[in-house]
Structure formats: C-alpha cells, structure tokens
C-alpha cells in the first residue's frame, strides 16, 4: 500500500505520485469541486448578457493559458499572440465557411474538425517562427514577435478573399457537432447558456491538459529554460527542441482560442488582431500571475470583465462619460486601466492575482498566528 496515507494525515506524502498529484491537498479538492459546481450552475443564476461575457472569458482563458505556457513557464517573451490567434480564427472560419459565400469557405462545419485544424495550423506557424526564437533571447525575441503582429495584420488586411478585407470582416466559424447546431435557443436553454457551458467544458479540458503538461518532463524543461537557459542546456535540456515545442503548444492554444473567440459574437474583421490584443493577453498572464495556469485563467476573466466593470463603475464615478466623443469616457478609462494595472501588479505583486490568493491562503493557514 505505497499510495495510501495514514488516516488523519492528509498532508503526508508517501510517494512521488502523491507529490505530483494535480489536487494534492483535501482543501484543493474541495475548492475545485465547489468552483466547478458553481461554474456549471452559473447559467441558472446569471442573465444572458453576462453569460456571453463569461463565455468570451473562458475562450480568452484558453488563449491566456497558451501564452502563459510560453511566457510564464518557458520564459520566452511573446508579443505575437495576436498573430497566432488570428491564424486560428481564419483557419476555422475558412474551414467552416459557406463554399458559395463571398469569402473562402470549405463547408466543414463540425467543431470536432475545425477546432483541432485551427490549433494545428497555428502550431505550424509557431514552429515556423521557432528557428528565430531559438536563436534569440529576451528583448530581441519580444521585438521579433511584435514584428509578427504587424506582418500578420498586413496579410490579414490585404488577403480580402480570406478575411473579407479591413473594416468589412467575415462570419466566424459555425458551432456544430455531429450535424447538430450547438448554440441555438431551444427547450434545453438559451443560446448564451449553451455557449457558456460549451466554452466552460473546453476551458476545463484545455486547462487540465496544460497543468498535466506543466508537471511533466516537458514542463520541468520549460521552467528550467526560464530560470536559466544555459544551466538548463548544461544539464541536458535540448534548448532548440524545447523552445520550439513551447512555441508550438502555445500557438496551438492560441489557434484554438482564436477559432472559438469570435463564434460568440459571430463576426470579426482583420483589425481585431492588433498589438492591443497581444498586450491584453500579456496583461492577462501578468495580472493573473505568470507561471501558473489558474493565474492565467483568473487574469483572463479579470481582463474580459474589466470593460463591464468600468461601465458599472460609471454609476459611482459620475465624471466618466459613456459617450465616446467626450473626455474622459469609459473606453479611455478602460484602456488606461490596462496600462496602470500592469504597472501596479508588476511593481507591488509580481505574482499577480495568484499571488494575492497565495497571501490570503498563507494568512489563514497560520491564523491566529499570522504575522
């Protein structure tokens, strides 16, 4: 009985498997269960517009997890996430598009086909970029990936047969599974309720996969590269191979997130994939807490809900206007908040929202001697 613990000693670990377990303490198991139950019950508690926002949050979280893997775990700064999101979005939209429509379409409407395809095409793009990434470090890499965003935006803007052209756009991928539409209002629930459940399930799948990757040999190689790449190379981590892998996995996540992101709103144009999108994802990872999956998820929801929060805040801060042509308006406040929050978190709590949680946890664990 190697894997068992003595009764009443839930924190005692007697095997490596217990040490590596995803939910290694009873408290984590209870919290996760409670959170999951609450999340799946949310569609009965919230209104449809909030659910739609949370569905977007789930998708953004998938993208943020991807960026977290390459930037937070492997330490390779990527400002090019918007590029990979775009590739995924257009692959999915083109695959599931109407073959007789205005823009390229192949009529493969099943999510089980276009979602992996979008991820794989984006991952392929990631692998193509990787030769540059493996040769460069730190800030050089950041600027090169920033260049990718600009090149990508140019291609998306000009290739109007695929993207519909700047300012026009095209419909996003259709949500169908085995010939059945997934997101329509019927007896079972409204469109937004179903959307939320779908995205939540996908988020759980992607998040668990990422956690498993992070605690595997590959994940440890990533963190070794992040902490000191020369040392990692010396102890036998194949740097080019693992950096390429990090970019491929991250781009796969980005591709899937991009493919799903616009199914919620149903329409998107090439202008979406700008530097600001990349900055938003960087903000999600950093505000949530770099190098943690749950942090990336928390950050994604935080950033997605931020516009809504500033609009609600407007009721208490009357000098902020909701009209886009007045100063200061909610849109400006929102953008400033991105910037300021990044700065504040990096200076005062580099571990992000996850760090705040760790602090709170440590406080109560040691209570009443928490000094």
């Amino acid at each position, binding site marked *: 009985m190697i894997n068992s613990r003595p009764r009443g000693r839930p924190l005692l670990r007697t095997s490596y498997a217990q040490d590596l377990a995803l939910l290694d303490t009873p408290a984590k198991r209870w919290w996760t269960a409670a959170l999951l139950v609450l999340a799946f019950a949310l569609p009965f508690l919230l209104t449809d517009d909030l659910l739609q926002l949370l569905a977007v949050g789930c998708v953004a979280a998938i993208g943020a997890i991807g960026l977290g893997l390459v930037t937070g775990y492997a330490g390779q*700064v990527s400002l090019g996430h918007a590029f990979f999101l775009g590739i995924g979005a257009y692959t999915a939209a083109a695959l599931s598009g109407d073959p007789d429509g205005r823009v390229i379409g192949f009529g493969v409407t099943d999510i089980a086909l276009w979602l992996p395809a979008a991820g794989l095409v984006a991952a392929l793009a990631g692998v193509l970029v990787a*030769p*540059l990434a493996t*040769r*460069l*470090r*730190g*800030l*050089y890499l*950041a*600027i*090169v990936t*920033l*260049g*990718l965003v*600009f*090149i990508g935006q*140019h291609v998306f*803007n*000009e*290739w109007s047969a695929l993207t519909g052209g700047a300012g026009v756009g095209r419909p996003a991928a259709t949500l169908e599974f085995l010939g059945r539409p997934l997101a329509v209002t019927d007896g079972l629930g409204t469109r937004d309720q179903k959307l939320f459940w779908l995205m939540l399930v996908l988020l759980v799948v992607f998040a668990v996969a990422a956690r498993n990757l992070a605690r595997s040999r590959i994940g440890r190689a990533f963190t070794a590269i992040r902490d000191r790449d*020369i*040392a990692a190379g*010396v102890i036998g981590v194949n740097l080019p191979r693992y950096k390429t892998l990090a970019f491929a996995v991250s781009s796969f996540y980005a591709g899937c997130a991009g493919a799903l992101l616009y199914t919620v709103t149903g329409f998107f144009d090439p202008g979406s994939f700008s*530097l*600001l999108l990349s*900055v938003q994802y*960087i*903000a999600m990872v*950093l505000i949530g807490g770099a190098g943690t999956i749950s942090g990336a998820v928390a950050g994604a929801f935080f950033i997605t809900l931020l516009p809504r929060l500033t609009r609600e805040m407007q009721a208490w801060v009357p000098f902020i206007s909701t009209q886009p*042509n007045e*100063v*200061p308006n909610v849109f*400006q406040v929102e*953008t*400033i908040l*991105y*910037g*300021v*929050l*990044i*700065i504040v978190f*990096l*200076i005062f709590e*580099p571990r992000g929202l996850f760090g705040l949680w760790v602090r709170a946890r440590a406080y109560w664990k040691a209570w009443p001697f928490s000094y």
Partner: protein
Amino acid sequence: MTELIESLLRGLGTGSVYALLALGFVIIYKATRVISFAQPAFMLAGVVAVTYLTPTVGFWAAVPLAAAGTGLLALGVERTAVRPMVGRPAFVVAIITLGVDVAVRVVVNAFIGLDVRHVGDPWGLRTLAVGPVEMQQRHLAAVVAAALLVAGLFAFFRYTRTGLAMRAAALDQEAALAHGVSVGAVFAVSWALAGGLAAVAGTFAAAGGSVDGALWLIALTALPVIILGGLDSLPGAVVGGLAVGVLQELTATYANDVAWLGGNVSVITPYVLMLVVLLVRPYGLFGTREVERV
C-alpha cells in the same frame, strides 16, 4: 532615374526621423538594459505639445519647449515606474513601459481630440528643385536636424563629464558606481534625452501633415531599426534608421509593380528586413555579441 533619386531622398528624410527615435531607444538601452516601449507615447506627447505651443510661441520655440517638456515627462515615468524595478528582469521592466505607453497614449489622444491638429512647421509640402530632381523641404529639414542632433549627441558623449559618466555606466554599472558615477543620474539623463529626441522626431514625422493617434506606429518602426543596427550601438541606430527609411520609400515607390504584395506593403518592410537580418546575424549589424559566463 529621377524617380529613384527622389525616393532615395525621401527615404533619407523619413530615415532621419527613425534614426532620432532609434537613438532614444539605444540611449535608454545602454544605460538601463531595457527597451522602453513607452517611446511611442513620448513621441506622441511631444508632437501634441508642439501643436499646442506653436500658435502662442511660434514653431521654433515650440519644438525645444516641447522636447524639454517631454524629457521631463520621461523623467517622471522613469522615477515612478521604472526606478523601483532596478534589478528585476529586463523583460518585466519592458512590459511596465508597455503599460506606461498604453496609459500615456490614451491621455495624449484625449488632447488630440477630434479636430485636425498641425505642428505648424514652416515647410509644409513645398519642394526644392535641383535640376529635374525635386525634394520636399521637410525631408531636407529632417536630415539637417538629425545630422545636427546626432553630431551634438556624439560630442556630448565624447567630451562632457556627464557623457563620460554615461559611457562608463553603460560599460559596467558596478565599476562606474565604484568610481563615483551616480548611476541613478545616468538613468535619469538617459530617459530625459530619449524623451526629448522622441519629441523632435515626432515633430518631423508630423511636419507637412496632420497629427493623429496613428502617428505612434512610426515610433514602433524604430524597433526593427534598433534590432537591425544592434541594441547597444549608437552608430548602428543612425545607419539602421537611414537604411530602413530608404528601403521603405523604395518599396513604396516600386511595390505597385508587384500586385500580389498588396497596398501599403512599405509599412511592414522594416519588420521583414529585421527578420531577415536576424536570421543571419542574431545581434544585429553593429550590436555587441553577448557572451555568457557560467
């Protein structure tokens, strides 16, 4: 032939603007080992300050005033957002400057508002003709201003005590500190210089046209420039800036012959050039090769 020479001259004009911006990036990088993504915001702030100052004090007084003001702004940012981060990884500081950029630009954009603003430069779109070749005066002015500023900067680094201190701190911070150089002051001077340069560059970028929020994209073009020239090389920044400017104007002139490239391909040529150069030389054309000691 005339077309070629004219686009070359235009390229030198825009290239000078890039060179000035790139110098700002390199100065900050050499002092603090950080790429400041806040430079675009400083440039925009400088230009907008010029548009507000020109009607009251005139263009020639407005530019130095705006440059000084932007320098002070950069100094403030360095003090509040960057100084507390000394010793933290360069990437973290770079992301902080990205946050500064986003926040400052929103404020500056609010000052631009909805009306068309001009820097009120004396050149406009007038041209200067030498034989069959025509050159816009604003491009000539940009070249002259950049040449003067670059000469001034190099003299400053070469002959003044502060310049010497800055070179020392760039070479080895601890050794400089041990010799009594105030590294904090070097940081401050670097940021202020970079801010001022950005304001001047922005003014020339906006000369002859109007100021709008999209102007910051020009400042981002300085990023491929510094990568091209090497992050820590001042001559590299100048050469890279001119090269990128010329290449961009040449593509703008001749890209129409290649239809599949699409319109406005010249906007992304700097980035493409950067990717190509980095594949061959990962430390840019003039950058110092990083040697890691274990």
